[in-house]
């Protein structure tokens, strides 16, 4: 590892020296012990393994949900447990991402919209298989209901 990368011979990570930048609360002891505890648990419980397993479980389940609910043009993409359900273009009015998020919330599942067409699933890294299945079941029974009611309203 070279240690003289900058033209003046200094380290990049020392470039912002004393007086150049600051923040009053950053790195406070309470936040830092929380961070250490989170690291301890993630490493002790090998949660990255869980992220890959549960991410695949959620992605696969959402993909089969799409096929079984008439949303064939929707897509699911993600990495680990950052997963997006993209609704197809040309949606019926009232079936934007935010509408679906609201309907899922009514049914007991909190997810987050990103723009008009993407619903984000961002569960904790220690999410269980049962919780993944329960969430997908809520999506499975909510999506067709919202889709058919909004499509019917549009056609009426």
């Amino acid at each position, binding site marked *: *590892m070279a*240690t003289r*990368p*900058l033209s003046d011979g200094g*380290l*990049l*990570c020392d*470039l*912002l020296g004393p007086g*150049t*930048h*600051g*923040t*009053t*609360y*950053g*790195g*406070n*002891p*309470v*936040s*830092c*012990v*929380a*961070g*250490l*505890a*989170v*690291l*301890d*648990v*993630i490493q002790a419980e090998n*949660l*990255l393994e869980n992220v890959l397993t549960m991410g695949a479980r959620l992605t696969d389940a959402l993909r089969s949900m799409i096929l079984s609910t008439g949303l064939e043009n929707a897509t699911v*993409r*993600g*990495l*680990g447990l*950052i997963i997006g359900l*993209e609704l197809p273009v040309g949606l019926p009015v009232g079936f934007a991402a935010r509408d679906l*998020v*609201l309907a899922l*919330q009514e049914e*007991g*599942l*909190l*997810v*987050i919209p*990103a*723009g008009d*067409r*993407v619903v984000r699933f*961002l*569960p*904790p*890294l*220690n*999410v269980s298989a049962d*919780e993944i299945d329960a*969430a997908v079941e809520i999506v499975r029974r909510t999506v067709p209901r919202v889709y058919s009611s909004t499509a019917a309203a549009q056609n009426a």
Partner: protein
Amino acid sequence: MLPPHAFARNSTTFNRSPLVRCPLRDGQSLHDMILLGMDGFSQKYERYVIPTYGRFDLDLVRGSGTHVWDVQGRDYLDFGGGIAVCSLGHAHPLVTEAVSRQAATLVHTSNLYRTGPQAELAQRLVEITGPGKVFFCNSGAEANEGLIKLTRKFGSATGRFGMITFKNSFHGRTMAGISATGQEKVKLGFAPLLKGFSHAELGNIASVREAMTPQTAAVLVEPVQGEGGIHIGSAQFLRELRAFCDENDLLLLLMRCSADWVGPETCVGGSPLRRMCNLTGSVGPKGSPMGFRWERFGWRRGL
């Protein structure tokens, strides 16, 4: 007044949904529960909180693991995670214990002084992420802001200040952050913005070359665009970016969110990004609501 256990037995008042009720917390009085349950928080938010968010009509009072409960005791599965912040879900007992103990010991000193937890966490993060140092801040926006300042400082030696970012990116709501963000909606009404930002297309190295100017000093990329709709930069694209930055003496800055902090390898699905890409900076809250920025010793491949 009735004791709490009386409420716990006769809780139909708050059982408006068929879902599981929020268990009465130790020490929580009936009075507290009634106050919460009467009208939630919406009136006070409307009256006293500046309305910058398009909030959902939902008042949350408690969380445990993947579950949160609203004022009426309805149980929700939380697959939002506070926007990918709560890595261990809500109220993990080990986090609660650590925070409680520290809160009774030393809460805040400012950064004019050293404290043990910051030293320990800095070491752990560097050991996990790679040789370098970290700066602790309060949010991803602040971490982005720091990388933009780093770019300015880095470029000042050669008269450069520009930064290439990506369409659909999101770099926070500060002035530098919205200037860097590749979405028009965050910029409306806030002109003039900071100079020097151009936006390329994620996954398209030719568009990065086109966005390059003589002033460009850095490329800032989210390997996974979250706010922009979950768009993923491939390992191949990130390697191309690494090579492009090496060729042109640019910093390569990665903005990463909480779910991928554990190691650079994980942020592109197991590809050897750390060895290939030699990250020069990364940001992200990491499982508790805080932010940090990590900067490598060197800034080019092999340094």
